[in-house]
């Protein structure tokens, strides 16, 4: 046996217990899946290639467990001295350890891939194109590259002992931050996006060579640093490390490091929350009210506080003049909303704080939290009172339900906004002011029916439509509810949700089935009314909405550092467009891309949209075309997200499958 083989064997023996544990867990998982899952419904396309995020994370965790003590344990346990006594270099020891660790993870990956392959075989259907061996080859290459990459990185930082995980966390945030700052090619530094299957089964799976090259360089550098560190005879810093650790200076430095590391983490965390607003690359569109607030906040005016019967107002001195009529009308707003919702005396007895000094999220005229409202102060008092009425409704909804709607906010956001909008328009605005919302909804639903089942799944709604559609759609649904069951129906529904013995954390349709049943209402009757209202709106505005075609197809090309989207537009689409009407487009690298990474563009010469290609480094992307309709409707109305392969053929967003085979239609 050669010396290197011997050291390999020694490392294998050292990791064998862990290998046995992993194998035992694999067997347990295998049996567990056989017993509890329908494995003939596990095509590799969805269940393996489509779960790349999870697979990358699992690989990372496994690599952490295997590698974090791989090198330093020898030093910590004192066995490094024994190894030094052997006729073998530390480089050989390092290589052997690295190889065994990577080999172990690769073996585990192969087992999982084999499991997935077998499930794919038994899940075969005539419609499902069986995953080609090229897919498995590319997937295996990328997955196992990740294993080697992670082991190299973790080994490199493992010499930092207890700080390893913190530094790794900081690195993670650093990459996130670089992406956030839209640093060119920062996306390539994120190993968790390395595995990305093609858009459709059958499309060629291209190896992301550029990203592989970047990560290989990083991984190699980490590997070499780890090797040099391991080769340092006395260990990193040697005796001086001990002196440093025990001295006051060392302790103070360590303390500062503890402070600094979370600062790095949290700064990045904080940075991740900045600027959530959607900004247009060409011409920034910032709502007027936000601009006013920004000016107000930066004005440095003294903060004043004034109380009315039901509110406590916090505002800037410069707004004092505008505040007087606002404060004078506020209590009436409170009473009107409270009467509308039949709010109890107990809830009415609590004052609501109205903060007009703090910044607001973009696109927001106001925000409500439990017993607090944040809002700007519009020029017109009527407008301010309408916003107050809207936000007060949110406060009452939360109070009346004891926060139950918050428990399943993704299923209830539409109702929160719908009821608040209904009360705002019903009590505080002129009847004709609802037209803007109606037109917005008419146009959006003329492109595709706004389904109730979409409204109750906020994630689905946001992934396909404009997330702000819940305002008009929710409002019309509430109108339908009132039409069927009377004006007290919203209150009855809230009371039903808040009942003490009611189920908690219900999601989706179940939340509203339960609420309606408890209130004695037939949800289907309301849905029917909602549908007929949408149809009426579509019919009423059909002549105008026909002028704004939805764009559901297009192509994307990369050229001269730019991504060019060429939408497929119907012939003569410009004919009869109202004055001021134009198209806008927003683009995202992948469905999960956060809004701050989206790029915006207006229609350019040649009927194309442009954006910097730096954000779109992968072969796939999505775009969503919307309309600025001019005077007809103030809102920007977006269609559906369209997935495309860059420099490939465009694809329409998953069309609804016809037929009955195993698929259930959701309707409204």
């Amino acid at each position: 046996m050669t010396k290197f083989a011997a050291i390999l064997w020694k490392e294998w023996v050292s990791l064998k217990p862990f290998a046995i544990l992993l194998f035992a867990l694999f067997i347990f998982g295998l049996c567990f899946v056989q017993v509890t899952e329908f494995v003939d419904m596990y095509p590799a396309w969805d269940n393996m290639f489509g779960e790349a995020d999870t697979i990358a994370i699992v690989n990372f965790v496994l690599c952490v467990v295997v590698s974090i003590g791989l090198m330093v344990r020898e030093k910590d346990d004192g066995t490094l001295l024994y190894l030094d006594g052997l006729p073998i270099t530390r480089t050989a020891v390092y290589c052997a350890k690295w190889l065994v660790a990577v080999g172990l993870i690769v073996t585990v990956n192969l087992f999982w891939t084999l499991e997935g392959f077998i499930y794919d075989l038994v899940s075969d259907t005539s419609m499902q194109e069986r995953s080609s061996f090229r897919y498995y080859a590319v997937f295996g290459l990328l997955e196992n590259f990740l294993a080697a990459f992670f082991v190299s990185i973790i080994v490199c930082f493992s010499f930092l002992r207890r700080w390893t995980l913190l530094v790794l966390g900081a690195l993670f945030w650093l990459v996130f931050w670089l992406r956030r700052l839209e640093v060119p090619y920062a996306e390539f530094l994120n190993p968790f996006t390395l595995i990305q299957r093609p858009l459709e089964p059958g499309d060629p799976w291209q190896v992301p060579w550029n990203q592989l090259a970047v990560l290989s360089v990083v991984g190699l550098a980490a590997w070499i640093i780890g090797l040099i560190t391991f080769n340092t005879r006395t260990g990193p810093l040697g005796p001086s490390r001990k002196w440093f650790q025990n001295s006051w200076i060392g302790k103070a430095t360590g303390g500062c490091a503890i402070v600094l590391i979370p600062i790095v983490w949290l700064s990045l965390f904080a940075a991740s929350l900045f600027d959530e607003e959607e900004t247009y690359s060409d011409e920034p569109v910032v709502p007027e009210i936000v601009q006013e607030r920004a000016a107000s906040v930066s004005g440095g005016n003294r903060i004043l506080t004034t109380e009315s019967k039901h509110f406590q107002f916090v505002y800037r001195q410069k707004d004092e003049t505008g505040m007087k009529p606002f404060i004078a009308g506020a209590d009436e707003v409170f009473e009107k909303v409270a009467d509308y919702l039949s709010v109890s005396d107990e809830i009415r007895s609590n004052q609501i704080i109205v903060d007009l000094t703090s910044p607001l999220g973009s696109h927001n005229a106001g925000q409500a939290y439990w017993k607090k409202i944040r809002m700007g102060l519009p020029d017109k008092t009527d407008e301010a009172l309408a916003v107050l009425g809207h936000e007060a409704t949110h406060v009452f909804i939360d109070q009346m339900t004891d926060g139950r709607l918050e428990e399943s906010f993704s299923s209830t956001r539409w109702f929160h906004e719908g009821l608040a909008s209904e009360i705002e328009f019903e009590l505080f605005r002129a009847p004709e002011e609802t037209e803007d919302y109606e037109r917005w909804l008419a146009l959006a639903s003329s492109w595709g029916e706004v389904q109730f089942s979409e409204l109750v799944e906020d994630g689905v709604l946001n992934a396909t439509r404009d997330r702000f559609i819940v305002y008009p759609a929710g409002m019309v649904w509430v109108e339908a509810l009132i039409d069927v069951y009377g004006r007290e129906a919203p209150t009855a529904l809230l009371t039903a949700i808040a009942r003490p013995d009611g189920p908690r954390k219900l999601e989706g349709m179940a939340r509203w089935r339960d609420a309606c049943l408890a209130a004695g209402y037939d949800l289907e009757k309301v849905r029917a009314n909602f549908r007929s209202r949408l149809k009426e709106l579509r019919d009423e505005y059909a002549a105008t909405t026909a002028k704004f075609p939805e764009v559901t197809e297009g192509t994307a090309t990369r050229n001269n550092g730019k991504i060019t989207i060429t939408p497929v537009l119907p012939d003569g689409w410009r004919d009869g467009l109202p004055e001021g009407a134009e198209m806008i487009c927003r683009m995202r690298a992948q469905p999960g891309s956060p809004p701050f990474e989206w790029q915006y563009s207006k229609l350019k010469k040649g009927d194309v949209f442009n954006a910097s290609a730096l954000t779109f480094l992968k072969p796939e992307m999505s775009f969503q075309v919307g309309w600025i309709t001019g005077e007809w409707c103030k809102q920007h109305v977006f269609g559906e997200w369209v997935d495309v392969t860059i420099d490939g053929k465009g694809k329409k967003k998953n069309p609804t499958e016809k037929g009955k085979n195993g698929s259930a239609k959701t309707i409204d």
Partner: protein
Amino acid sequence: MTAVLFRKEWRQHGLWFLILGGLTLVIFLLVVQGVNQDGTGGGIFFGIGQALTYFFPIVVFILCHLLVAVEYRSKTQLFLEGLPLPRWKMVFVKAFIATLLVCAYTIGVVLIGWLASGGSEAVSLRFLGILISTAALFGWFVTSFFFLIAFLGRYRIPVLIIVFFIFNWLVSSTAVPVNDFPPFALIERFGFERDIWPREAMIWTAVIALLLFAVSFTLALAKEGSVSAILGEKMSYREKMFIGAAIAIGSMAIMMWETPTAEPFDIPGAISEERNGFHVYVSPEGEPETADLEVQLASYLVRELSEKRDWLGISEADFPPLYVVEKTGIEEDLIEWELVEGDTAILMYADYRNPEFHRETLMAWSMSQTLDSFSMGRNGLEHRWWIVCGYEGLWEMEDASPERVKAKEKLAFDTLEEFGFSTKQLIGRAQYADEAGWKEADAVIYMGFRYLTENFEMKTLQQFARNTINRPVTRRDGRAVWWDLTHPVGPEFEKTFGMTLDEFAGATIDYIRKHQPDDVNEKEESE
């Protein structure tokens, strides 16, 4: 002597206490800044609440690690135990210092937050009292928890992981309203609730914290070779593996209970009919003058479907109720359906007042949906779905007019002529339906099953149905896959009818040709 203990802790960890104090302040400032930067955070106290929940426990963990775990890890507690003072006093001093520091940190950040708000937070004395007391009490609870955890020595990390997993599972996968319970109820509305003292939550949080401290003291005060001292030993490699495996297996086992909540389903005021334990509900869209049509439809459906159910040998308990909701404006087939989460009911939509509507179609489609639903979608897999569609066609055409039957025959013939028909297309029905259209594929398989009815006894057809599509399946029961794999449809068909699927496909083609439309016959005759 007690003062000496305080001085000892100060000398040993004083710098750390200061660093942790500074760290706490910095963390809170950053979190407050972070959550409020985009304007949606809700204010300074909201940020402090977030930091208390998600970041402050890290600080307290480090604090308790320094005060307790380090002592046992480095075995310096042996020296302390040799001193002439009771052991409880030693532990008490540590608990007291931890409590004091945590209270100082939490109260400090609330007061600094108030000052930093510069008046933008309307703070009354009551509000300030609520903020300070809830923050301090929550901090005390966290202290008691990590104080106990610190005594668990080498098990503290595994225990923390388990607690973390269980907590996450409770929050995200169960209906348990964790935030309603102390201590979480204390900070649920931190920074927003300004009027009501969370008295109950405060009392129970204090009780829980006291209990946790009591357990800590019990561990620490156990006699020679104390439990804490034993736990303080370093974990062996095998022990780590065992604990790791136990956690992994435990987490997987917990997934067993992870099933979505079933949708509570009912339609108040719907016309209902019941027969042999089977319920049908029909609900009109508007308010019709009479409910005659609904009653007739419900009676028809309950009679027909309960008969079919019994014919298939499906038990009452496995057969979900059917809800039919009127929906006008459905295009083409006038019938739609929607999945009910938990498969507790079958929900069909039908434009049943439309003159083009056929109740037989609704009955047959409802039966197919039921068979799909009660098998958890397994009958909907294409290698069995063609069987469901075959019976569906027979049921739909049972009482159909000769014109409808003729139309179906013509559709089958046209489909055959254009797309052909083979065993591959029979078993690979999904693609066949995708190419030819699902109604077209249904028409072909209907003709195949009609051929069977004309050449075999109904009892044989019944036997085949009972052997293939009448097995109820429950969630999380993977045995259904094994049953399917060990009972493939082809051999079952051959065993029942004495013919292979190839022969059946051939016979179907012949049968369809035999029943070709009259116009084709006339054309052929003239030629």
